[in-house]
């Protein structure tokens, strides 16, 4: 235990706090910024932070106040800050709830994960980017690579003391395509644990193909109502709508009106939380409040069968055993991707920023590249927008049996939203 953490715990234990939580996060990071294949900048970072939350409670009321404590604060500074927080917590009057408690000793995993080799992961990313199958007309404009080791230790007054060590990476890539003096770009951002060379190469190669097609795209016609297919990471927004509305916070706050047993999704859809997904950037054994992350079914046959969320809002809803989920799997499609793609449809593979509003269910996004399939003809289109509302789209929604993983979500590879509104570019 670091000297500063020891000091902080000493201060907390002698304070007026009725309960407390401390998260110590240590991040070591390496970053590389490339313009074309030349190095714009390299960066290193070594950061430590302490997040403290103190609680004051009576039988019915629980108040809390939180603050970052600088890692170089003196014990006197820590004591002053904790005293202020204790006072502030008494102004914040929430219904009482319990903090998480330690698991049985036999189940506990005090430390999960292993040290991360920043140099090896960085090498993988740099070599992958250098070896992309670029051509005279499609290539990499720029790329940013972020690789970190996160070491997160959580302690609370109830006796929890758990540490998670995990890798977290992010890559931002911009791809250019050009033809007859015209150049376009496509943007990609990938989150992952470490570098998956094969997936990164495959996806950026696909992006370069989209770039070629965008150069020959026609303006999107005004289709009014159309069947829209999503087969890229934009589809995560659709499934995130379900995930958000199944959170205890959304239900308690009235953002979501779903309750157990409601038919919230198409009849075959299942949605579950899982503690780990291959190479997810969010593979930690415990959540940020010290609860073990587990597998839990949230939607079964499209019906609400479970919720996820932090202990405060979960307990307000009467759930005693909850956690903040970080990885999700959505399944249940009965048709193949090929079958989903039958008939006329508009497959949109590039948006400027596709959004699904968890409160209203409104969907919206400007189309940067789509493929309009009518009969035997397929043309690439660009411009205009797609809009609609999930309450109207869910009953007619279809999704494939095949799946695809985007960082912390494994979702159907192909999702079809029948009857969306498509505003043309002209």
């Amino acid at each position, binding site marked *: 235990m670091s000297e500063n953490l020891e000091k902080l715990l000493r201060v907390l234990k002698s304070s007026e706090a009725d309960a407390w939580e401390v998260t110590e996060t240590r991040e070591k990071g390496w970053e590389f910024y490339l313009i074309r294949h030349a190095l714009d900048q390299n960066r290193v970072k070594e950061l430590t932070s302490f997040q403290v939350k103190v609680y004051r409670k009576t039988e019915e009321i629980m108040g809390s106040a939180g603050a*970052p404590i600088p890692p170089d604060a003196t014990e006197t500074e820590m004591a002053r800050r904790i005293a202020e927080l204790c006072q502030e917590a008494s102004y914040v009057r929430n219904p009482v709830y319990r903090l998480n408690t330690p698991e049985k000793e036999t189940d506990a995993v005090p430390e999960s994960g292993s040290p991360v080799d920043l140099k090896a992961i960085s*090498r993988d990313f740099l070599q992958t980017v250098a070896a992309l199958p670029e051509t005279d007309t499609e290539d990499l404009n720029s790329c940013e690579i972020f690789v970190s080791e996160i070491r997160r230790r959580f302690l609370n007054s109830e006796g929890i003391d758990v540490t998670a060590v995990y890798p977290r990476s992010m890559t*931002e890539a911009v791809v250019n395509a050009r033809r007859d003096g015209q150049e376009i*770009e496509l943007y990609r951002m990938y989150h992952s644990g470490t570098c998956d060379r094969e997936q990164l190469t495959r996806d950026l190669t696909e992006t370069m193909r989209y770039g070629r097609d965008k150069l020959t795209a026609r303006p999107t016609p005004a289709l009014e109502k159309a069947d829209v297919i999503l087969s890229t990471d934009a589809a995560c927004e659709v499934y995130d709508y379900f995930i958000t509305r199944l959170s205890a916070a959304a239900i308690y706050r*009235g953002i979501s009106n779903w309750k157990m047993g409601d038919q919230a999704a198409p009849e075959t859809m299942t949605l579950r939380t899982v503690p780990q997904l291959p190479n997810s950037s969010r593979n930690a054994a415990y959540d940020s409040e010290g609860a073990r992350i587990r597998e839990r079914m949230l939607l079964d046959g499209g019906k609400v069968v479970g919720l996820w969320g932090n202990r405060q809002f979960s307990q307000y809803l009467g759930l005693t055993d909850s956690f903040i989920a970080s990885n999700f799997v959505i399944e249940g499609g009965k048709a193949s991707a090929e079958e989903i793609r039958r008939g006329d449809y508009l497959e949109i593979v590039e948006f400027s920023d596709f959004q699904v509003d968890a409160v209203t269910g409104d969907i919206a996004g400007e189309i940067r590249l789509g493929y309009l399939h009518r009969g035997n003809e397929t043309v690439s289109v660009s411009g205009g927008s797609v809009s609609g509302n999930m*309450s109207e789209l869910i009953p007619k929604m279809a999704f494939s049996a095949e799946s695809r993983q985007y960082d912390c979500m494994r979702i159907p590879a192909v999702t079809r939203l029948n009857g969306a509104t498509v*505003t043309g570019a002209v």
Partner: protein
Amino acid sequence: MKAPFSAYLTALAPGLKQLIQLLRQKYDYVSVLSTDSVGFQATISQRAKAVSHETMTTERGTVVRVCRNGLYSEAAFTGFDPDRAEEAFGRITEELEEQFSLLETLQVSPYETAALSDESRTIFAEMETERLPEKEDLAELVSRLTEISDRGVKEGAEQGLRVIDCMTRASSTHICKMFLTEHQDLRQSYVYSEGVIALLAAGEERTEMAHTSLSGRCGPELFDRMAEKLSEAIRIGKDLISAERVVPGEYDVITAPEVTGLIAHEAFGHGVEMDMFVKGRALGAEYIGKRVGSDLVTMHEGALCAEDVTSYAFDDEGIPAGDVTEIKNGILKTGICDALSALRLGVKPTGNGKRENFAHKVYTRMTNTVFDSGDSTLEEMIAGISRGYLLEGMQSGMEDPKHWGIQCIIDRGYEIADGKLTGKVVSPLVMTGYVPDLLGSVSMVSRDREIFGSGGCGKGHKEWVKVADGGPYLKAKVRLG
């Protein structure tokens, strides 16, 4: 009163100056940015209350920038001990050498750039505020926010609106930053604050969230005006609940100042961030000196051109704040630029080099982005539309500097028919189009203008910083879906 500069940073300065001297023995250029920004955020609703001393911009840490043989490198860290500068020097150089060895093995060559100039400069800016966030009476503030939340539910019901919850949030941050080089010593201290009222309202078949906000480069005294925004939030909630869908198509519209600001930000704000010129990612580079809007369009950008949440004295590279005329009477004049990009492009930096926080890289970023006012009145503008909408409230936008496409998601459209507002509301609206077409269609500009600073801005999908934008009412032609 003046917002006092951080005693913590003052104590760090001698050690950091020693570190700069040590690093100068190995590197052609060395600068240090240290930050110590504190604040609070209080969030109060009917269902949950929270107080935290973390805002979007609270931070404490140091970043060192060095240049050797044309390559720029940075090291960011927390917990600098001013009595142990040599230890920090050892850690920084060792870690960077480890990276250099990997880059050498992989034969990655640098994007060669000259060393930044280090002309002598001193700034000590303590800006005015009435109150400081670190001294604010949070008990009184929580009580005031609770009262606003309670009134939101009660007054909404009195006006026939079923309010599920009324959330109020007040946050205030005291920014302290110190930028040092061998010949420069820049220190600034200022306070900004922002308040939000978000009203969650339910209709028979839908739930809507109505937002209002206020912001300023000022202390928590801003929240004394928060209750005045409640009636606006209730009015918006009622409008959203009764709203219909827009029939997709091209319309004559009037953009309210917050929508004008969103257009300024997405259309030309991002489009002339000149680090994108270095990468060949912005069409704007080819349009300098050319027409991009109607004669009525003039746009400014800079920390000096308004007083709001990001009106600083110098940027995160030690460049003094500026005021750039980006568009003058429809002609694109210039862009905004961070120091490194300026060096690469052979232009002067404009004071727009910003970091999300000390641990992040510098990019060219916006500060205050605003359209200039014109000489029409809103009434004249409405009278000039036979079929269209008055667009109010912004949800989000997305830039497209390479192709000048625009996506703005607008909260509400108020129907105008035969020169009069009909009372019919449509929501939400996706406004898309080609930027020069949109700006070229601006045919009337109002006399008054407003600036909004309660949001954040990302570069791509990351690097979140505070920005403010706004302007007058604009009459234009756009495509709505």
